[in-house]
C-alpha cells in the first residue's frame, strides 16, 4: 500500500525507527572500505544481494579514488611543480570520485532504498567512518 515513498515525503513526515551503521573494514589497511556483512536489522527490509551489491560498488568507487595509478601520480607531480596552486582551478581526482559516489548513492536511494523505507547517508557526511542506513517507520503510523 504505502510502499512507494518518495524521498522528500519520507524526510518530512516519517519518523525514524532505527539506524544501522555499517562500519569500516580495515583488513586491507587504511583504504576506505566498508564491511559487507548484512546487518540483521535489515533482514526484513531488503534483499541481501541488493545490499551487498551496493556496498561492493561503493567499496570499488572508494578504491578508485585512492588508487595509486599513473593519473594520481601525474596529478601529484603537476601539483607539486605548481606549488599546489593548480587545485585552485582543478578538482582533485579524489573529489571527482566523491561526486560520483554521491550521485550513485542518490540514485540508489531513489530507486531501491526509499521504496523500502530506508535511506542511505553518504559516508562523507559521517567522516568516512560509517554508512548510516536510516530505517523509517511505516507511513501508516501504526505506533
Amino acid at each position, binding site marked *: 500500500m504505502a510502499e512507494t515513498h518518495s524521498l522528500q515525503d519520507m524526510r518530512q513526515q516519517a519518523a525514524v525507527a532505527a539506524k544501522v551503521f555499517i562500519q569500516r573494514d580495515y583488513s586491507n589497511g587504511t583504504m576506505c572500505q566498508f564491511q559487507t556483512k548484512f546487518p540483521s536489522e535489515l533482514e526484513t527490509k531488503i534483499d541481501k544481494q541488493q545490499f551487498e551489491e551496493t556496498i561492493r560498488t561503493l567499496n570499488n568507487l572508494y578504491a578508485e579514488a*585512492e588508487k595509486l595509478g599513473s593519473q594520481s601520480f601525474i596529478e601529484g607531480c603537476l601539483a607539486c611543480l605548481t606549488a599546489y596552486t593548480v587545485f585552485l582551478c582543478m578538482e582533485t581526482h579524489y573529489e571527482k570520485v566523491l561526486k560520483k559516489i554521491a550521485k550513485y548513492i542518490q540514485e540508489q536511494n531513489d530507486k531501491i532504498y526509499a521504496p523500502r523505507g530506508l535511506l542511505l547517508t553518504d559516508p562523507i557526511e559521517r567522516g568516512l567512518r560509517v554508512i548510516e542506513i536510516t530505517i523509517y517507520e511505516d507511513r501508516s503510523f501504526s505506533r
Partner: protein
Amino acid sequence: YYYNSILPPSCTGHRGRTPRRKWQVFPGRNRFYCDGRVMMARQTGVFYLTLVLILLTSGLFFAFDCPYLASNLSPAIPAVGAVLFVFVMGMLFRASFSDPGVLPRATPDEAADLERQIDSTGCSKPPPRTREVLINGQTVKLKYCFTCKIFRPPRASHCSLCDNCVERFDHHCPWVGNCVGRRNYRFFYLFILSLSFLTIFIFAFVITHVVLRSNRTGFLTTLKDSPVVVCFFSVWSIVGLSGFHTYLISSNQTTNEDIKGTWSKKEGKDNYNPYSYGNVLTNCCAALCGPLPPSLIDRRGLIQADTPQTAHQSNGTGGGSYCDQDQCLQSTKFVLQAAATPLLHSDPVVLPPLPAKPASLGGPCAYLAPAQPTLPSCAGDVLTLRDTAVDSHCHHHLHLHHLHHHQHFASPEETPCGTPQGALPCPAHMHLQHPAPPVRYDPVTQDSLHEDSVRGLVKLSSV
C-alpha cells in the same frame, strides 16, 4: 568561542540571522581564521617564530649578500634563492593552514550504537575497548577513543594538544603550528626539504661572500652583516630532520610508529610494517604523489538540521531547527550547571571525590556544542533513539568527569531518561542510577589515555 556557540544571542522565532558555519562549533582545540579557510592549532607562537626566522634570514641574505653575489658571480644566484624562498613559504603555509586529516567525532547515534555493541559482550567485566584487525598478515589493535567516541582507524592517533583524532598521525609540530597527518604530511616534508636546500644555499653563498669580501676588507666586518650564525644551527637541525623524514617516507612509517618501535624487529615475533609497499620508490610516490584526500570536517559548511522531524516538532522549515537548538541549548546549559555543582556527582561507590578543575568544565562545552547540528534527535522526536541519544550526551559529560576513574558506563537501556526533553533531569538520573558495580582500574583505557598525552609531549620534544 565555546561559550558563544552554546549561548547564541537569541533563538526563538529568529529566522533572519545568518546561518552559522560548522567551524564555529568545531569541538577540537583548533583555531580558525578567514571564515574557516585556515585551520591551526591553539598555540601558534612558535609558528610565528619560524616565520620570523625564515623571513629574517632570507631578508638579510637578499639585502646584503645578493647585490655582491649578483654583480660578482652571477644573477642566477638571487633568482634561484627567490624561487626556493617562495617554495618554502608556500609549503609552510600549506602545512600550517590545512586540515591535517582530522576525523570528525561520532554523532550521538553512532556513539550509542558503538556503546551498545561494546557492552553487549558481557556485563560483569569492563568491556574491551579495542578491536583487532588483520592487515596484510599483521595483527593491529584498534583503540577506542573516548573523546571522539570512535574506534580509531589504524595509524590514526588522538592529538592531545589539538584534542582531535588525526588520520595517519605523524606528530604535532609546534614550528608549523599544526598537527602533521595524512593530508599535510607531504607539505610538511616538502617544507623541511626545501628549507634544507634554502639554508644550505644561503649558508654556502654567505660563506662565499665572506671569503671573497675578506680578501679586500676584514673577515669580521663582513661576517657581522651576514646571517651566518642562524644558518649554521638551522642547517644541521633541518637537514637532520629532513634526513629522518626521508627515512620514514621510504619505509612508510609515521614518527609515531618509529618512536614507539611498532614495526621494529622483535625477537620471537615476525614483525613487519604491513603498510609498506615493499620498495622505496613506491613508498615515496605514495607519500608524496598519492591522491590528496579531502577534508572530512567540512569547516565552511552551514549548520542545518538535516534529520527528519515529527509532526509536533516541525513548525516550518526554518523555525523548526532553531527551536530544536533552543531546547538542546537548554539541556546543554543544564548539564553545564550540573557539571558545576559537585553535589550531583554522587559517588557512594568507591571513587574518590572529583576535583572540580576548571579544565574539566571547559570540556563539556566543547563536547556538547557540536551535538547541536544533529540535536533534533535529542529533542525527543526520535522515539526509540531518544534515550540513547540523550544518554550519549550524558555519557559525554560522564566520560569527561570520570575519565580518570574509569567507571563502568552503564548501557543506555539501564538508565532511561524519561521525559521528552530528556536532558533536564538527566544528569541527576545518570549519577544516581548507576547500578553497575564500580570498576577501579582499566589498564586498557588508562594506557590509551596516558599514551595519548605522552605522545603529545614526545612529539613536542621530537621536533
